[in-house]
């Protein structure tokens, strides 16, 4: 345990303030933070692709806001993690290969149509909400500070997804059908979120036990789905393995696009 107080990592914790504070993450904490950072980064990368393509201008702005918040969380986690190895957030984001990414598989799933994006975002936001709430009590002050800031933002993300779930579920026959298909598409990746996180071993008091988040998640998401005139999918869980670097076929192309320019100029800074 280190003795950084929350004061040095104030309320407005960002990648920049973390880098400046110069706190070095213990190796095990860093490995855990990489998983958290990858979840947020990969989802932000997916959402970013909606900007300028959304169904209405207000949604270009809203999805952009959510993506920006998530990218901010990712940068904080990855900056903190990278300190353990004397690296930067960009070393981690741009110069790791697919098997070295530890995000859960939900986050790499494609955008699909707007309904599928909302389905993925609903699951993600409610999950993040519980996770960050719990993590804000972590014994690691940097993780706690990042989570405390993030949870305020995720509140709005949950609201955004729930509102769209209702609109699409109760809107028209077509939107109801699409929303159901969106839920069906992402549901196999829900169970993995609450399965054992191999990166959190030996981090009692610091890391959050994923299984502890399931009950609250169910309490929010399951009734919301029913209230929206939809059915909770029963599809079997996918195999998972994201936290061990095992991914669906969707991550490779996402990384290729994200990393292409940085890797073409490995010596450069931007």
């Amino acid at each position, binding site marked *: 345990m280190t003795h950084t107080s929350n004061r040095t990592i104030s309320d407005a914790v960002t990648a920049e303030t973390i880098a400046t504070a110069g706190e070095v993450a213990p190796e095990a904490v860093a490995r855990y933070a990489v998983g958290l950072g990858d979840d947020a980064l990969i989802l932000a990368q997916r959402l970013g692709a909606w900007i300028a*393509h959304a169904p209405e201008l207000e949604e270009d702005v809203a999805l*952009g*806001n959510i993506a920006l918040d998530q990218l901010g969380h990712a940068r904080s986690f990855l900056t903190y993690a990278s300190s353990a190895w004397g690296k930067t957030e960009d070393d981690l984001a741009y110069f790791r290969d697919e098997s070295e990414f530890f995000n859960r598989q939900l986050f790499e799933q494609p955008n699909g149509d707007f309904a599928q994006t909302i389905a993925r975002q609903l699951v993600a936001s409610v999950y993040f909400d519980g996770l960050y709430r719990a993590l804000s009590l972590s014994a690691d002050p940097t993780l706690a500070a990042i989570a405390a800031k993030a949870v305020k933002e995720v509140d709005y993300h949950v609201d955004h997804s729930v509102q769209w779930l209702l609109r699409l579920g109760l809107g*028209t026959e077509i939107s109801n059908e699409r929303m159901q298909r969106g839920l069906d598409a992402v549901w196999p990746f829900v169970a993995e979120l609450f399965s054992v996180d191999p990166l959190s071993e030996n981090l009692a008091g610091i890391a959050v036990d994923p299984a502890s988040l399931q009950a609250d998640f169910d309490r929010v998401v399951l009734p919301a789905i029913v209230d929206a005139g939809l059915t909770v999918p029963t599809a079997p869980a996918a195999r998972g393995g994201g936290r061990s670097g095992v991914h669906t076929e969707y991550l490779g192309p996402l990384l290729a696009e994200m990393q292409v320019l940085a890797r073409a100029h490995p010596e450069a800074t931007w």
Partner: protein
Amino acid sequence: MSVRAANTDEGTVDEAGAARFAELLANEQRVEPTDWMPEGYRKTLIRQISQHAHSEIIGMQPEGNWITRAPSLKRKAILMAKVQDEAGHGLYLYSAAQTLGIDRETMFDQLITGAAKYSSIFNYPTPTWADMGSIGWLVDGAAICNQVPLCRASYGPYGRAMVRICKEESFHQRQGFEILLHLMRGTEAQRAMAQESVNRWYAPALMMFGPPDDDSPNSRQSMAWNIKRFSNDDLRQRFVDMLVPQAEILGVTLPDPHIKWNEERGHFDFGDLDWTEFHEVLAGNGPANTIRVARRREAHEDGAWVREAARAYADARAAEAGASQKIAS
């Protein structure tokens, strides 16, 4: 097009209103939506504000193109925020235009059917990352020169929208400058990338101020109405005067061998622009004209079922609320 004459029947003259309008302009005061205004003034504003809004919306694309490939997470965040700002600008401006009696659907329709104009600068493609720097520095830079005087435009909602927008645009320009500065201080490949990009964007940015004054038919009336404050050529001159010292700091060469300080004029001289190219792009033959409108139309059409669902849901809620009110009373 559903433009209504707000407070006078078309053709009849409200003499008191006209006198008041003239007085507002003479005193450099704002004209508000409830004031009488000449039809020409209203039409000019609708055209100008909606074109400006369309430009913000179409302008999201050339930069949106790099969000997924930005070479650092910090740059990715800044770029996302910027493209999102442009969407916000479009929204403020559509609202300002709506106060003149045109609805957003009509304006958006004009955009995606290709009937409306938008700034032709966005019909150039963004093949390299350095273009994110050039757009910020040159395109947002030119936009600022154009728009700062519009903060004083006589029409209140427009002027106020511009105040808000200009603040963000100057932020964008600084960020673009910073991207180029990093490239110019980087590797040889980065420096070449920056110079090549500035070479492509310089002349199109200068053309953003519109044709030379003697070839700009609408300008004089707009100046009399206190909408436009400076002529196209005056603004272009200001812009060049601003760019030359900044280019020196960056270490990029502006692609015009005729740029030279003119002691007598107190301004930089610069070479003639190739206006045939400008008119080609304006006529729809730019490198990306068809792509830009098609992309926006595609997004709009793909999203039709979403908007329909939102409408149906809102209507059902409103009906429900109405019914429960009846029961209550």
